[in-house]
């Protein structure tokens, strides 16, 4: 497999990496850069575990080709607690017990972050709508909604 160089910004850090031509953004993050917080649940864009924020928008990184990300800005779960302190969302997830096994959690938090970026105080139904693409088998979702609502409430 041929490799090609790519330049991009991840969590405000610049990277230049060689990636296989058919690599996904998920593979680039996990295997090349070593940011393993982002998870793969299905590889088909159906579960949301690999959600990252690409140029301001949430995407399933398993569906984005790495080579399409030349010059892009990516935010992952590792950038969520940027200043060495947990973000409001991360604190709310802990406070509300909004995770169990934790495998879907990075994707959940990134989807929720993208939602709050555009809609700082979402309603219950808006949260369900925005988060529908993120699957969780453990929690039954109730606590995740509570956590996101709590942050929305704070921001308001």
């Amino acid at each position, binding site marked *: *497999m041929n490799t090609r160089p790519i330049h991009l910004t991840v969590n405000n850090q610049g990277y230049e990496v060689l990636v*296989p031509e058919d690599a996904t953004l998920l593979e680039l993050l*996990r295997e090349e850069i070593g*940011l*393993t*917080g*982002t*998870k*793969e*649940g*299905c*590889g*088909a864009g*159906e*579960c949301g*575990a690999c959600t990252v924020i690409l140029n301001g928008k949430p995407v399933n990184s398993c569906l984005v080709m790495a080579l399409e990300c030349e010059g892009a800005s990516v935010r*992952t*779960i*590792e950038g*969520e*607690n940027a200043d060495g302190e*947990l973000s409001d*969302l*991360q604190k709310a*997830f*802990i*406070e509300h*017990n909004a*995770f*169990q*096994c*934790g*495998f*879907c*959690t*990075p994707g959940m*938090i990134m989807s929720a972050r993208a939602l709050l970026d555009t809609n700082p105080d979402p309603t*219950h139904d808006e*949260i*369900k*709508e925005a*988060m*529908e*693409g*993120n*699957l*969780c*088998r*453990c*929690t*039954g*979702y*109730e*606590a*995740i*909604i509570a956590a996101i609502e709590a942050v929305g409430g704070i921001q308001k």
Partner: protein
Amino acid sequence: MTTATTATLANKEHRYIGKPVKRHDGFEKVTGQAQYAGDIKLSGMLYAKMKTSPHAHARILSIDASRARALPGVRSVITGEHGTAKVGIYMQDKSVIATDYVRYAGEVVAAVAADTLRIAEQAIELIEVEYEPLPALLDVCEAAAEGAPLIHPDLGSYAHSEGVFFPEPGTNIANHTRIRRGNMEAGFAEADIILENTFSQKQVFHVPLETHVTIVQWALDDQIKIWCSGQSPFSVRDLFAIGFEIDRNKIEVNIPFVGGGFGGKAGIHLEPLVGLLSRAAGGRPVKLVPTREEECATLPCRQGQFARIKTGCKKDGTIVAEAVEILWDAGAYADYGVNIGRASSTSACGPYYIPNVCIDAKTVYTNKLFGTAYRGFGHPECFFAIERQRDLMARELGMDPTDFRLKNMLYPGLTTVTGELVTENTGRPDKCLKSAARMIDLHTPYTEAEKAEMRLSGKYRAKAACVLQKAPAMPTWSASSALVQMNEDGSVRISVSGVDYGQGTYTVLQQIVAERLNLPIEKVNINRSVNTTLSPYDWQTVASRMTVICGMAVADAADDLKRQTLEIAAIALRASVHEIALGEGYVYVMQNPHLRVGFDKLAIGYVYENGNAIGGPLIGRGRAIAQGLSNLDPETGQGKAAIDWTYGAHAVELEVDTNTGDIEVLQFANCLDVGQVMNEQLLRGQTVGGILQGIGCALSEAVNYNDQGKMITNNFTDYKIPTFKDMPGEIKLDVVQTPQLDGPYGARGAGEHPLISVTAVIANALANATGAQFHDLPLSATRVHAKLEELREGQVNEIAEGMENFEPTACTA
């Protein structure tokens, strides 16, 4: 908005038991720092890929892997041509890799380890396998019938737990468990009404978001290291050692953070396969990350079930006899599956007293994906059948289904179907049922205006309530052990080998130790990962047994640490042990509280001013075993099957759109008799999660195959689990707390129970809303709509009359 309605349950007598303690692993999990098996990279690591059978049943004629072996970058290729070990837990019927036959589509026939995953994928395509396709047995009833072609002609030679499982060689029946009580003929003769029904359920998937990721390094001298996403570190070690005849001491199993299990990661799975690849590659570590498609088609699922229930009742609603025959659709292998048939038999009639009972549970091979443990261990399936049967019988009797249940309930003083006496401390299904019914106002009829609105819109609402029960299903000898060691600063660390893959077990264990030692919870740490060389023994993390059995082990270890601490403190304080007591992180003389010595001064040895030292590092050790369990009598099934029964009940109100068949769960209530709430927030998390998983089983989840036996639901497009949009409108929870005498602080397990009976209560409410009596699942919109169309053609006005058939008597709650 879904609201929390659980009453505040904190017990004032305790400092940490029942108190709102946050999960221990929050920081790692919300930051992405938690390391799962898939996140591990080792020096020299190779990447594996599996080649699987496209046929549901075939003879392997030849395998040509020469081109794969010749591909640059390929370091090992394995096939089953020369035979291989059978590795398993209860019925050793499954080879590590298919040898002469494949018995399900998706079975592994070859595997490759290469420098990169891309090379491994390429190599797999170069392996040529020649098959002679054989007829596939896809229906469990056909497979169980006399004269059916045999899927395992060698069944009689398979090693299994003797006296516990009863295979029937010469058939496809891998185990036949029998429970007998009373006299069936006399029992049915007493009955005024006899009702016989059949129920069937397809296989379903566990769907952990993380697949069965496995890394193995099988180095020279059989030094083996395993890192896997598993629930059972010591079972992996044990079964690996038995399968390959290797000393336990040469095998080390590491379990990092685990991305969900639900039973599907209990026992042993890909570890032997990946191990063989590593050995063949000269001992380099090999990593296998199953794709979602492989997780669905190759890794095990929940078994399917076909049940026939015949119930005899007197006119007053007394159940006098019940015969239950269950055919478990094991799929191609019944290694773990035989125990599901055995264990769930003890619950097959539910928490009811029935004097004459005959239960036959047969675990039957078919040419489908094989089944394994799944949250509830056969009970969700048994309770769909039995709790549907209860509503159908109540309908025959013209009796309110709740009254019918309460009349026959298992009250203290009565005995279970295996002859176990129910005591005042066993738990109270009747109280749970009344509570669940009350939470949704089960017995408040809809007003005429509401009914008119339903007729107008075609959206019919109805309610129903069901009970549930389960005890841990495990060998009589299943045990846990624990260490609690004191650190230099007087804090403590707990070591156990139960795995916390999200349930919150570790947090509850921390609470127990903090309570026991009167330490702030922040000073009580617990291992995040498990290592079988460093951590004390535990059988498996299954069966809702951790809070109870591992809980008792850590309590024992904390008490042991406390004894040692007091012993050294007594010397240091120049007092007798009975004159001193534990403060918060120190020991003091009761008569002179200012005389004290800190834990930090005792932790690794007490040192006098002149340098003399006594004691040494304080290490508490504890253990617990499933005390008093017995094997069940082979002929009658009588014996002690359970250490603790957790009873519960669900109630639901749903709305069926008869125009489309869509079901919306408006409100869902659950009440469990947990003995003692250990952590309300964690309990709610487990309960809500279990309910939604159950709703998935009720409304959308089923593994489907084409007529050749090839799976057609091997991804999230074709196999839908509940999303945010499938949440009930409201979830209401309550608990009953009848203390379990031998549980820690009276607690019982509750991890599996929320999922049990969810399918039944929804199907019963659907029947009440529309008259549509489903005997199978899932209740998808398409299937419900089709059934309603049938009803419309057959019996005009039947729809919406369903609920009126059940004008309830006054609520007995």
